[in-house]
């Protein structure tokens, strides 16, 4: 997987087609750039989706997978509805982000990568997302001191939400959960196992 990819050969494209969600669409891009112009976070992307697609075809494996561009996706789906070629661009970006994450190639400390992992772990634990635990985990993801700072900064909002009964401090003690937690966990583990087998990941993942 780490061998140098020959340029403008199809190797990396084929890897993307095999291992990335909706990756088989990459070759269908016609390089019009409408996606790049439609993205709300467009100015913050190092490489627009248009460029990412070209880089994949050009065999720039390392540059694509270590890029933080895909992590800028807000899932607004503007690119999907505007793409004249109907590429599911949002899903491809998600797929590339996930693939980079699983390979351990995502940029260190990428905040969206971090919250994505926290969110999923939170979900798998009980079957439902516990917003308080998720938020706290978010604030503390960069360490304890930074976490206190983050939490203090958002304190006003937190108290407001508590007052409006839209954030329940009691959730810390348990909160909402599915009844069949173990079934869900087994099911998710199985799904991951199948997907890893299909994509050639070792069971451990990233």
């Amino acid at each position, binding site marked *: 997987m780490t061998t140098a990819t020959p340029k403008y050969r199809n190797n990396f494209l084929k890897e993307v087609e095999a291992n990335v969600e909706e990756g088989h669409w990459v070759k269908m891009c016609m390089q019009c750039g409408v996606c790049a112009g439609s993205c709300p976070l467009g100015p913050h992307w190092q490489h627009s989706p248009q460029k990412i697609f070209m880089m994949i075809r050009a065999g720039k494996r390392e540059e694509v997978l270590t890029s933080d561009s895909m992590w800028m996706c807000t899932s607004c789906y503007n690119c*999907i509805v505007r793409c004249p070629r109907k590429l599911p661009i949002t899903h491809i970006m998600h797929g590339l982000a996930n693939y980079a994450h699983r390979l351990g190639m995502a940029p260190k400390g990428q905040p*969206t990568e971090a919250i994505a992992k926290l969110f999923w772990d939170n979900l798998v634990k009980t079957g439902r997302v516990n917003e308080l635990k998720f938020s706290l985990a978010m604030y503390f993801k960069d360490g304890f001191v930074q976490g206190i700072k983050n939490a203090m900064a958002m304190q006003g909002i937190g108290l407001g939400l508590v007052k409006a009964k839209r954030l329940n401090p009691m959730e810390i003690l348990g909160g*909402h959960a599915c009844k069949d937690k173990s079934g869900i966990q087994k*099911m998710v583990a199985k799904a991951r196992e199948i997907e890893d087998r299909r994509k050639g990941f070792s069971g451990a993942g990233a």
Partner: protein
Amino acid sequence: MAKKQYAFYPGCSSQKGASASNFPTSVGVVCEKLDIQLNEIPDWNCCGASIGYGEGGELPRLVINARNLAQAENHLAGQDIVSGCPACWLATRETVERLHESDSLLAETNEALKEAGLNLKNTVKARHIVEVLIEDIGFEAMKKPVVKAIEGIKFAGYVGCQTNRPFGIAGESFENPQYLDRMIETVGAEAVKFDQKVTCCGGALAFSEPDKSQKQIRDIVESAYDHGADMIVTPCQLCQANVEIYQSEINKKQGTKFSMPVVYYSQLLTVAYGGSAKQAGLDGQLIRAEKLERIAGKQ
């Protein structure tokens, strides 16, 4: 008249004490008035939202949604799944479509579902409450229970992303959908021109990329002010939360004086149908929607 039956998928944010907990109260009133019965899917689970992909990948994400579909198939046979949350609706509908397109994905999904003792035939239709209101009820019928016209309030109809893209409401344009404005007008209120109608609020990146998201939110709120709106109305839980919650942050950082209430369309309908402020969940606003509360308080 027999009530229309739907398998209801409330979603995490609509649970008690969660960020959109004021939403289901108003939905309850609206359904009551329009003869809609929502039957909660037993033991439903999270859809993975728009951030689940990072760790969850493809199949696990499809599988958790397939579990809800299978639960509905088993317990609420023949009913469409209806969700009030765009992210839940989108994830569920996407799962339905993906599994229709690929037999191998459906087989893999069922292999995983088996671990939880379930099997999916993929026969259910996934819909959004707004679709039910527009397609099954219709604007005319939606108008009938109105007892108090919401007069004298100008609303910026903020449709946002996920109720609008990639699926959207049938027959609407992605760039300028009309249904929310029509809903506003249905209850006698005024829908102002609003050029940020379908702008992204930053979604889940409000957490991870606060500065970038808050720029989006600022544009949205500013435009509502520019067009003379008294409040913003939206069908989306994440939009509601982001656009309302972060106004104080933006004020603090950028010296703005934003105080623009952000309400749900269902809260509007509830007040128009004669519901109290509490029934409409208006006590759940961080920025109080005073003008709407005043109408709700009138006899």
